[in-house]
C-alpha cells in the first residue's frame, strides 16, 4: 500500500501549494466559532449544548473541505490519469489519509479555541481527546466516500453535506454524548458504550467504503 502513501504525499504537496482545502475549512470553522460565541455571549451555555455545538462546528467545517479531494481530480481531468497508475483501494486510502490529517489539523486549532471562547469545562481531557480521535476516523471515512460519490455528479457543494449527514449521524450522536461525559465527570465507565459505538461505526464505515469504493470510482 505504498502507493496510497505516494498519493497522500502528492495531495499534500498540492495542498501546500494551493491551500485550498485548509482555507475552506479554517475559514468556516473560525467564522462559525465567532458567530456562536457572540450569539451565546456572556451567559454560559449548558455543557450538553456546548458538546453538541462543538461537534456541529467540526462537522460542518470538515464538510466544507473534505469533498475537495475528489472534486479537484474530476475538475482538473486528472482522475483518469490517476486511474491509469493506481488501484481504487490505493486511491481511497491515500485520499482518506489526507482527509484525516486535515481533520486533525482542524481539531488542533478549533478545539482549544472553543474551550477558551465558550467557557467549556472539561473534566477528562484524555476522554475528550480519545473521542475526537476515534470520531475523526469515522468522519473522514464517511466524508471521503461521499466525496467520491458527489465528484461524479453534477451538483457538488450542497449535496455533500446533505448526503454525509445521515451517514455520519451515528458518529455525531455518540461523539456528542462522549464529549458531554468528558465535560461532566472524571471517570471512563459511563463513556464506555459511547466510545464502543463510535469505534465500531468508524470501523464499519471505513471497511464498507474500501469495499464499495471500486464501484463508485469506476462508475
Amino acid at each position, binding site marked *: 500500500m505504498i*502507493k496510497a502513501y*505516494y*498519493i497522500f504525499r*502528492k495531495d499534500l*504537496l*498540492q495542498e501546500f*501549494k*494551493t491551500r485550498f482545502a485548509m482555507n475552506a475549512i479554517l475559514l468556516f470553522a473560525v467564522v462559525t466559532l465567532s458567530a456562536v460565541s457572540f450569539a451565546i455571549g456572556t451567559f454560559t451555555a449548558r455543557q450538553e449544548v456546548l458538546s453538541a455545538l462543538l461537534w456541529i462546528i467540526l462537522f460542518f467545517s470538515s464538510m466544507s473541505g473534505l469533498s475537495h479531494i475528489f472534486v479537484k481530480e474530476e475538475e*482538473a*481531468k*486528472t482522475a*483518469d*490519469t490517476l*486511474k*491509469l*497508475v*493506481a*488501484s481504487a483501494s490505493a486511491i481511497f486510502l491515500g485520499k482518506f489519509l489526507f482527509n484525516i490529517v486535515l481533520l486533525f489539523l482542524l481539531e488542533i486549532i478549533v478545539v482549544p479555541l472553543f474551550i477558551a471562547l465558550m467557557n467549556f469545562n472539561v473534566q477528562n481531557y484524555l476522554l475528550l481527546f480519545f473521542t475526537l480521535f476515534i470520531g475523526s476516523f469515522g468522519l473522514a471515512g464517511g466524508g471521503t466516500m461521499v466525496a467520491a460519490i458527489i465528484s461524479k455528479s453534477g451538483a457538488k457543494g450542497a449535496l455533500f453535506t446533505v448526503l454525509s449527514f445521515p451517514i455520519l449521524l451515528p458518529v455525531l450522536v455518540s461523539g456528542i454524548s462522549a464529549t458531554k461525559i468528558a465535560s461532566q465527570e472524571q471517570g471512563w465507565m459511563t463513556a464506555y458504550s459511547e466510545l464502543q459505538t463510535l469505534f465500531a461505526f468508524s470501523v464499519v464505515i471505513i471497511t464498507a467504503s474500501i469495499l464499495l469504493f471500486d464501484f463508485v470510482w*469506476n*462508475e
Partner: protein
Amino acid sequence: MKLIADHISKFFGEKRVLKNITFELNSGQCLAVVGPNGSGKTTLLRILSALIPPSSGKVQYFDGQILLSKENIFTHTGFLGPYLELYDDLTAEENLNFFSRMRGLKDDRSTWWNLMDRVGLGGREEDAVKTYSSGMKQRLKYVFALMHQPEILFVDEPRSNLDMQGIQIVYELLREQKSRGMLLIATNEEQDLAFADFRVAVHD
C-alpha cells in the same frame, strides 16, 4: 503481446456508441481508429485501455499464452489523450516523479530525463505545468505516457496542439513505439494514418 477485442459494444444510457467492434492486434502493429467527431473513437480507446468497461463484449491481453488481469494491463500500457491531464499546480518534475513512483519505477529522474530533452522540454522541469503552453503540455504528456516504456501505447489525437517540429518529434516517438510494441491511435489526419497497419472505422 496480443490484444483481442471481441464484439465490443458500448451504450451511454439509451444511446449506442459502439457496435460489435472485433479485431486482433499483435506487437509491431499499429491500429488507427477513424470516424467523424462524436462517433466513438475516444470511447473505444478508453474501453481498450480498461479505463471504462464495455457494455458487452470482451477485451483481452495476452502475454504469450497468459491472460493479463486488469491491474496488470496498466503496467504494460501508456495512454495520452485530451482528458488525461497532469497536475497543473505541480511542476513537471513533481508530476513525473509522482507517476514514476506510482508505476513502481526508479525514484529518480533517470526514467524521464532523456524524454524531456527529446520532446524539447529540457530545462523546464521545475516550472509548474500551469505555466506551460498547450503544445508544451501535449509534449509533456508524451513523456508521461512513455516513461515506463510501455508495450502498448494509446494515443488519442497525436498531433493535438503541436507545431511542425513537435509533430516530427512525436512521429519519431511513435515509430519507435511501433517497433518496440503496439500502437493504437485515434485520428482523422491523413498523415497519421501512414502508421496504421489496420483501421477500425466507427460510425455515428
